[in-house]
């Protein structure tokens, strides 16, 4: 191999390592933001989510439990606590590009804030039984000036 070829090989490897390192650190930083949240000072509203074959139950702070429908207010931070009553599910907000496992006996949490009002689908992203494909919900984001 020529000297230029050797330098090119090393430069390629260093470029690849540097790129992956940068992506890894950026991902880790974002992961910490999602997991630990950046909204603590805003006192996020806590909503419990329970996965059951084949329904998503959303429990609001006032005790109301609504199946398959999550209503949030645009621009307001929420903390989602996810668990399961039977088998493993996965709460998947497609339009947020994020999903969270729902495992019996464990509770996982994520911080969520949506700025754009609208109606978005919620899916179960973990095969949970014959009716897995029916386990759908909707996320309704209302404008910030209306009551959520």
């Amino acid at each position, binding site marked *: 191999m020529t000297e230029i070829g050797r330098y090119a090989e090393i430069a390629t490897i260093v470029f690849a390592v540097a790129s992956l390192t940068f992506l890894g650190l*950026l991902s880790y930083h974002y992961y910490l933001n999602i997991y630990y949240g950046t909204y603590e000072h805003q006192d996020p509203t806590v909503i419990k989510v329970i996965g059951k074959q084949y329904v998503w139950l959303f429990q609001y702070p006032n005790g109301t439990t609504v199946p398959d429908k999550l209503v949030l207010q645009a621009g307001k931070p929420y903390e989602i606590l996810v668990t399961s009553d039977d088998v493993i599910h996965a709460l998947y907000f497609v339009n947020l*590009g994020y999903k969270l496992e729902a495992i019996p006996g464990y509770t996982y949490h994520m*911080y969520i804030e949506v700025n754009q009002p609208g109606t978005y689908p919620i899916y179960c992203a973990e095969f949970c039984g014959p009716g897995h494909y029916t386990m759908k919900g909707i996320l309704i984001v209302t404008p910030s000036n209306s009551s959520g």
Partner: protein
Amino acid sequence: MIDVENGPKLKPFDYVLWFFTIMLFFAVFMVVGDFGNLGYIVSSPTGDYVQQLWGITYFLAAILFGVFMGSLVYLAVKFRAGAVPQAVGQIRPAQPTDYGKVALPILIIVGAVFEFVMAQALGTLGTNSGGVYSWLARWTWNISAGCCIL
């Protein structure tokens, strides 16, 4: 004997065509993937994270695709069968590669990343217990150990 020194040489215009082929494949990759834009992501902090990470990853992937696929196609066409004279004589053995030059930067970068991530995970970086200094001390030890291994 056909090798790098004695084989057919690329002219300056060939390098221009090579570069153009790479750029062409890069552009095609970017256009096919909508320039790394995820149209279905709504405006939210989490969505912005996903969009940004995907955009960077897609751009880097486009560079990789352009360089490798562009080079593969261009060189395969340029040196296609019949386009170059047949090799005659014996093949010179390949020179050994100095892996130390490759391994050292990788070792240092990987070590730095692991140390940084571990320090973040353990919450020792930037605390009052001399976290930064202990981190630097461990780093010095790591570089020394890496050099010894090499």
